[in-house]
């Protein structure tokens, strides 16, 4: 812990302080303004939202860190994961548990496959033209969205019921909640830790981190960086799909949710610092909390949700004014 702190650059140390002060401020405001129970509920909602955003944002961040591609199709991946998962869940004839697991597995695998084809076939030929990669993912996102709409229709899908075990109720801050929400938070935490271990404790992770620093060097060491690129792209896509499926029992599936979460995820990645994994994790929670508190504030004090809608963007603008390369980004 101490070595972690001393190894940080002064800039990143300042970022940590800012984050701590800001979160403390948010907590204080909500406690003073909403009272103990509502504040607790709000914070819980914020953490939940943060975890969901993290699933999309971590993929975005991984892909950007290594490939330098801002993958705008990440929102579409979430959407495909959600709809395909929903479809599988309803078309299978088995117990709820099996259907639920099959939905997760099927959605994630399909999106991973799409990611693989997309990286190998479309993105790879464009490494010399980075702007085109971004724009390409933009175009592909539009196409994916269109396909989902064509196949599954415009109507929102109802939330599906998770296995009974996850469907039980518990009470927190005088609010009765489904255990499924804890499951989402757990999933987010597991992914956070899992990817951290992958990046820091495994050979492939070391290659990925080295590749983020200096791809040519890694290539020169005789490692096939291109294959690692594809792998990371697949991993990133799969994380987004997982986020999508996790969302369905919670809020159903709509065509808009892809873009909603994409924007949140982009904000998170920018705030956290492009390509910084810890930055993404911290920023997810901060963004989730900000959004939840702003929503509650709008609800209690204003008759319109302007504050809720602009809070995230304001946060991003503020952070970039203070730290031009995000909280934990590589400065120049």
């Amino acid at each position: 812990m101490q070595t972690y702190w001393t190894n940080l650059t002064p800039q990143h140390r300042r970022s940590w302080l800012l984050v701590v002060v800001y979160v403390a401020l948010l907590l204080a405001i909500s406690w003073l303004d909403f009272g103990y129970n509502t504040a607790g509920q709000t914070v819980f909602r914020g953490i939940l939202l943060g975890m969901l955003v993290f699933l999309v944002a971590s993929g975005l961040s991984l892909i950007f860190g290594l490939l330098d591609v801002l993958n705008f199709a990440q929102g579409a991946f979430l959407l495909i994961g959600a709809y395909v998962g929903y479809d599988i869940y309803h078309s299978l004839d088995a117990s709820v548990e099996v259907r639920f697991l099959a939905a997760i597995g099927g959605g994630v695998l399909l999106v991973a496959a799409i990611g693989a084809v997309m990286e190998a076939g479309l993105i790879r030929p464009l490494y010399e033209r980075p702007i085109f990669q971004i724009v390409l993912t933009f175009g592909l996102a539009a196409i994916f969205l269109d396909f989902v709409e064509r196949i599954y229709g415009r109507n929102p899908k109802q939330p599906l019921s998770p296995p009974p075990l996850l469907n039980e109720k518990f009470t927190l801050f005088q609010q009765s909640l489904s255990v499924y929400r804890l499951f989402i938070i757990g999933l987010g935490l597991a992914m956070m830790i899992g990817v951290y271990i992958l990046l820091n404790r495994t050979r492939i992770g070391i290659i990925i981190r080295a590749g983020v620093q200096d791809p040519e060097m890694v290539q020169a060491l005789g490692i096939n960086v291109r294959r690692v690129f594809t792998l990371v792209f697949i991993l990133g896509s799969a994380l987004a799909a997982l986020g999508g499926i996790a969302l369905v029992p919670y809020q159903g599936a709509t065509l808009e949710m892809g873009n909603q979460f994409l924007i949140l995820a982009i904000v998170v990645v920018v705030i956290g610092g492009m390509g910084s994994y810890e930055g993404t994790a911290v920023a997810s929670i901060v963004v989730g909390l900000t959004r939840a508190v702003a929503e509650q504030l709008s609800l209690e004090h204003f008759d319109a949700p302007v504050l809720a809608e602009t809070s995230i963007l304001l946060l991003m603008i503020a952070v970039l004014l203070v730290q031009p390369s995000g909280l934990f980004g590589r400065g120049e």
Partner: protein
Amino acid sequence: MIERTVYRTIDRIGDPALRRAAESLARLVLENWFYALVVLVLWQFPAIVADLSGSEVTPRRPTGESAFWQSEMARALVLACLAMSYNLLFGYNGIISFGHALFFGAGGYITFILLARVDQSYQQEALIAVLAVVLALAILTRITARRLVTLALGGVLLVLLLVPNTPGMTFYQAAALAVLGSIGLSLISGVVTLRLRGIYFTMFTLALAEMFFVLAKSGTFRNVTGAEDGLGFGDLLPAALNPTPTGDGSRLQMYRVTIVFFVIVFLAIRRYLNSPVGRVIVAIRENEERARTIGYNTFFYKLLTMIFAGVIATLSGVLFVIWATDKRVHPEMLSLKFTVDPLLHTLIGGVGTLTGPVVAALGLILGETYLRNETFTLETEVLGLVPLWQFAVGLIAALLILFLRRTLRPAIHRLAGDGGRWSVLGAYLALWIVVSAAGLVAGGQVVPDLDLQDEVFDVSDLWDLFLGIVFVIVVMLLPHGIVGTWNRFWITRRIRRMERALQREKAP
């Protein structure tokens, strides 16, 4: 060819004054004849459509094809101006902004908020504000007295011109104030954003525009912006600029005003690019650090370009509202759509080409309008031979292999052995057959009753998909866009010739 002959002939003229005059005349004609021709066609476009469709140029009710296409063409020209301004930033200066819609929307909103909501005179307040600014400058900075006086006089003159002492203001005053507002917006956002690098800059501009989009939509400011319903301007427009009446020639007149606007924007951008500033911004795009090292304050030039592009976008926004069918300013004008559309037009037409964005904007917008108004009968067989869906499967398989060819190359070569070009081709063909067959079998299982009867359907439904696919194909196969590829074809030949000459020189 012709060019060279002309210039060579001119070179032979003895009298230097005469020669110079002839040269500038020749340059004027040779550089502009094509554009002049295009403008002429645009000018006559209503008459051409009228002739082709048998409708009238200035019809009383019911309005016909010509009147319809006048407004469609005008809208396309306005959006072409927006695309050109985006290309100025993106293609020539290398600034990738995702917030361009902010300036487009600002044009609509500032103009019509001022028109619709200002119901008293603010002249005194404005004069006091100008004097306060001048005073502050005098006290806080070491500005020279002469500059200060010029500034004060200029400010007072502007106020007298733009802020009337009668309640409300005219359309022209409001539009001029919108331009001023746009310049202010560029200055503020430029100072803040231009120090950010790369993707951070892009995302910051995106967030800024999104903010205003959300604010414009929000019910909180309903009595200013009209929230989702937008702002109606129905009778606020001066008669000379109102394109709605067709019978008295108003629409035709406004159509021509739009062409004039388009031509002015085109010429202004071309002059900007050919000016000393234009050369500097291209240098910045090429190598910003080097541009700084030879003595350019690159920040200033980028800011100037942002202001210039912003003003054009703002004016386009005003015209866009004028041509809107429902006569309202909508929050949509501030949405990402009006950043992405010009970006697409720029990419498809050719990044950093003068005419590319125009070609793409006109082609795509008019093409969309045309297709949306038609219905097509989809025959379920291609050429009466292959069922359509089978054909599609084959096509998709071919495209898939095409896109994956780099990845597939080792496998293909292993398959082909070393039998040369033909066996490689054979291997690709075999792969295609296998993939198609798999697709056909799978498709036959999932959709056994696809090929039943001819279907009449509406293209409007398919347009977005079509656009997305065109877009991916252009990005993958035509990276320099339509005009860019065309230009490159000629430039590459010239450069090859130069390279060969350089090598010849090295050889002996």
